[in-house]
């Protein structure tokens, strides 16, 4: 465990040294000689793959681990400004999103994508050089980075709608080029074909616990597929992918007892976890700092009250275990407790900010399946999966529903996902996915969100913006537009000349 993490951190620093960049379009090319010298043995390939994961944790102005939180939470209704104001967040929260907003930076994503592309290009050459390195082993690595790249493009396609599709490594100056955006359909076609290839190549087991939770394996691919197909409304494929994970017997919910919070969130890599970004005492997560030190964000009490209605007669032991003391802590100024609690009552010190970022966990699989069932006229079955999640969480009757129609089920599942995955970077994607389904049938979900999230004097404008579907995607950051001139075009909402 320790060795693994140490290894990662060394690699991480090493990768910084030769791949740090300010801008994906001007990636400092790894010098040709260095590339040739580096790719010699399987160890080098392994190191490069680990470097892909490590690059997600930091090293750029907007690394993947930060962007996953920001893109999933800042536009939604779960958080509020706390004691210090983050101007970029305030503007997003009020629907005043400019191309200069730093949360619109995608450089962290493209840095990791480039590292993935580098492995895909240079890895196969090592098979010829290192006699002990088999094609079969290389294929496993290939499956891993294809899966990771697909996951990253899936985020980009949901956040920006259309982005450049870069599939080859930028390793030298001559390969730098300004690119145009690929269509949303092309990006998803690439994601799906990458995942299908990865599925054939990737192992089910990497051997050690941390590696199984911290690296992409077969089940991670299945989880990503479920999520992708849910976004594309291909519900049968969602159910198929979820079923493979459910029937594998490799995963289970962490029991909702007194150790639930620490097992699932503080220690991490639990039986419930499918894929987590691995933070450690060498690389602390950024979330603790945002919540507890600079104090940018706290829980939005309006949403908290909506998801967990007040019942002043309820005893503490009757409360939903996911509410006070898990998602947030009321006695700590409604701080976002998931990333700062050592347990349900005590805060941990800053140097223990080692909570992982959970990308997928088993509860997500169950609720994704429920959502797919609800949309294929299998509502009764959907409810059984929701009940499993609610039973584990000791969810009180106040929030229990038994809707039969698809409309009611959608709201119910969305609320349940809000309770289950509070502050895990899911909320905005959950709301948008459900809102846009059936030709934006549920725009009301976005409207309700806006009413809870923004200031009263901005609500009307924000709601009207949210009715404009172009506004559902972030602008491309101005620095990228400048660098990509004249090929890279701003997203339509943010450039009146395109409308």
């Amino acid at each position, binding site marked *: 465990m320790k060795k693994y993490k140490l290894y990662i951190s060394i690699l991480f620093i090493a990768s910084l040294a030769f791949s740090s960049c300010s801008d994906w379009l001007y990636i400092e090319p790894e010098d040709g000689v260095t590339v040739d010298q580096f790719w010699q043995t399987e160890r080098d390939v392994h190191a490069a793959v680990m470097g892909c994961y490590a690059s997600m944790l930091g090293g750029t102005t907007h690394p993947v681990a930060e962007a996953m939180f920001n893109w999933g939470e800042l536009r939604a209704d779960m958080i509020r400004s706390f004691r210090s104001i983050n101007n970029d967040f305030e503007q997003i929260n009020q629907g005043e999103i400019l191309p200069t907003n730093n949360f619109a930076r995608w450089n962290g994503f493209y840095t990791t994508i480039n590292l993935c592309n580098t492995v895909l290009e240079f890895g196969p050459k090592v098979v010829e050089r290192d006699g002990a390195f088999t094609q079969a082993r290389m294929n496993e690595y290939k499956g891993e980075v294809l899966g990771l790249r697909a996951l990253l493009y899936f985020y980009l396609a949901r956040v920006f709608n259309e982005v450049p599709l870069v599939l080859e490594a930028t390793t030298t100056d001559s390969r730098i080029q300004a690119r145009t955006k690929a269509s949303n359909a092309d990006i998803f076609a690439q994601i799906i074909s990458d995942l299908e290839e990865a599925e054939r190549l990737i192992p089910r087991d990497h051997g050690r616990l941390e590696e199984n939770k911290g690296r992409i394996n077969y089940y991670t691919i299945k989880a990503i597929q479920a999520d992708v197909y849910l976004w594309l409304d291909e519900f049968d494929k969602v159910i198929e992918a979820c079923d493979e994970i459910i029937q594998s017997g490799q995963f289970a919910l962490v029991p909702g007892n007194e150790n639930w919070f620490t097992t699932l969130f503080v220690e991490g890599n639990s039986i419930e976890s499918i894929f987590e970004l691995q933070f450690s005492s060498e690389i602390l997560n950024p979330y603790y700092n945002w919540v507890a030190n600079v104090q940018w964000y706290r829980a939005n009490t309006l949403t908290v009250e909506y998801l967990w209605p*007040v019942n002043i007669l309820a*005893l*503490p032991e009757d409360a939903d275990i996911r509410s006070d003391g898990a998602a947030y802590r*009321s006695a700590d100024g409604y701080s976002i407790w998931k990333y700062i609690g050592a347990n349900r009552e005590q805060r941990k010190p800053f140097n223990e900010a080692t909570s992982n970022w959970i990308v997928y966990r088993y509860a997500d699989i169950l609720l994704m399946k429920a959502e797919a069932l609800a949309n294929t006229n299998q509502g009764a079955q959907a409810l059984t999966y929701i009940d499993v999640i609610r039973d584990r969480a000791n969810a009180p009757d106040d929030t229990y529903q038994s809707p039969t129609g698809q409309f009611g089920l959608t709201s119910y599942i969305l609320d349940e996902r809000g309770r289950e995955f509070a502050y895990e970077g899911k909320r905005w994607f959950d709301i948008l996915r459900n809102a846009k389904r059936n030709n934006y049938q549920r725009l009301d979900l976005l409207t309700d969100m806006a009413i809870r999230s923004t200031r*009263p004097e901005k609500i*009307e*404008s924000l709601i009207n913006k949210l009715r*404009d579907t172009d506004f559902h995607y972030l602008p491309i950051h101005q620095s990228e537009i400048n660098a990509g001139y004249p090929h890279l075009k701003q997203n339509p*909402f943010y450039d009146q000349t395109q409308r």
Partner: protein
Amino acid sequence: MKRKIYSSFLTVIILLSIGFVSCLDPAFEERTNYQELIGEFLENNPDEFSMLVELLEKSESMSFLKAYGALTLLAPTNSAFEKFFAESEFSSLSDMDREELRNIVRYHVITDTIPSTEFVDGRMNTTNMFGHYITTGTFFRDNQAVLMFNKYAEVRQRDIRMANGIIHSINDVIRPELQTAAQVIEADSRFTIFTEALKRTSWFDTLHIGKGPHTVFAIPDAVYKAEGFDSFDDLWADVDPDEGNLLDINNPMNMYVAYHILDKNLRYVSDLVFDRVGLTRVRNEVVTIRPVGVNVLVNDDVFAGVHEPGFEINRDESDRTVLNGVLHVMKEDFRIKERHPFAVYWSVTEQLEIMRMPGVFRRPGDAVVLQPGDLENITWTGGNIFYEGRGGGAANPWVVHGDLFNIMLRPEVIPWVELKTPVLAAGDYKIWICFRGSSAERHPVFFVHFNDIPLPNVIRTSPYNPTNRTERPGYSERELESRGYKFYQWNPDDIAYTRSDDNDPDITRNILESNYIADSRVFGMLAGTITVPTTGSHALRFVGISGTKEFWLDMVHFIPVDEDQLWPRVNTKNGRLVTKEEIHAAYEVYQSQN
């Protein structure tokens, strides 16, 4: 000598050079940098702004936009002017006189830099040079979100930053609002009944001649029709059955109209939402404003524990700027509520934020730490305040609901605490601060301010001897009242309470004979008599003087001066009011059973 010649020579040269230079300088440009200024930007983009440039030159304002400053220009494009001339009485700029031209310019220039990120659903923060506010808002038109000024001028390009300010280009000319509130209402055929009501009560003249600014809540005829009023006379008969003198400001109909006008205050909807309350032209009568989702309601209140549903403002039609104010349109009619002062027994810990904490509010458990800023309706500086639930910390069964606030009120720790009171009806009240005192020395001593006016009595929370029978035997509750003390609560578990009198152990007193108390540490002190000027929420502030220990705050009572200050008391178990007779009855039941 040599030096002298030299210096005079120099002087001549200098003088000469000055002479020469002054003749040579037309080629110089007097500026310190070459960043584009607003006026230059307009000139450099004649495809879009040539007509605006013409307007600026004809009105002699161009130099202003080419000077340094901090401006916002709403720049109508050429097509905007074409649209304007097609729709207005003028067919070209040469039809307009200088003042008309200048009004148009003044209407489009704001002497402040306002980027689009600061736009709200309401007015800008600064007026234009005409003195009117421009409203902003994003609307949904033709499947697109569209940013508009004054609800009709669509923004084409926003936030063009120049060295002397910001340009927002627009596709329409913003028409100066030159009609008064009265004229606009009269000219609008939807408001015939309201117009007549204004005229008959003479408020029409105020809205026409008065500089204001006026904020008017106009009621469309359709709303009256829905209520069953087809004419002004129908309305009058309902509001003022006696059909008295309409010009009398105390006439109900006159007051009804005045209640729809704010007292010389310019409030757009976004301001009202922020203010939460507005003083009307009826003396000391306010309207309250509450946002509910996207809707904004007038007089949606909880009054004496009962929710009174409010009346919706038609936001699409409201925020209409007029020469002397702003006009709002109602979806429903509202009237003055006659309020009489009534007693408020306020359990201070009933704060929404605490009630939302599961398993905390009025529950057994540890104290909850509250930092400044955690509560919306209680503000303070300095250290933390503690909420102590049932039985936690200093809370005990003798405080109401068993919970209280623990406040280190003293200049060194928490110098002051300010509480927003529940809604109080206008009138005169006595304020009782009700707390758990202590026999120990050095619990806080503090002033009470009501709406920033200090009240006469200083509150001393320790030692509690003023009510202690040991030192002041035999004080009746009325004698205590005259000294500014009262027992405000009653614990039903004390019904069997009997004790020996402190001075004479032979005499025993039951609960009825001992001022209905078992724990005399919990009592109220009179802070003073206040006049609540307007019905609504007001500010109550405790300002620490000295002390080193805790202030255990339980309740504040506001009791009209002409009502009994001592009874009823508050049942500590359920917070209900309890009369002396009820306690007697309970005691009789107890005795008959034992």
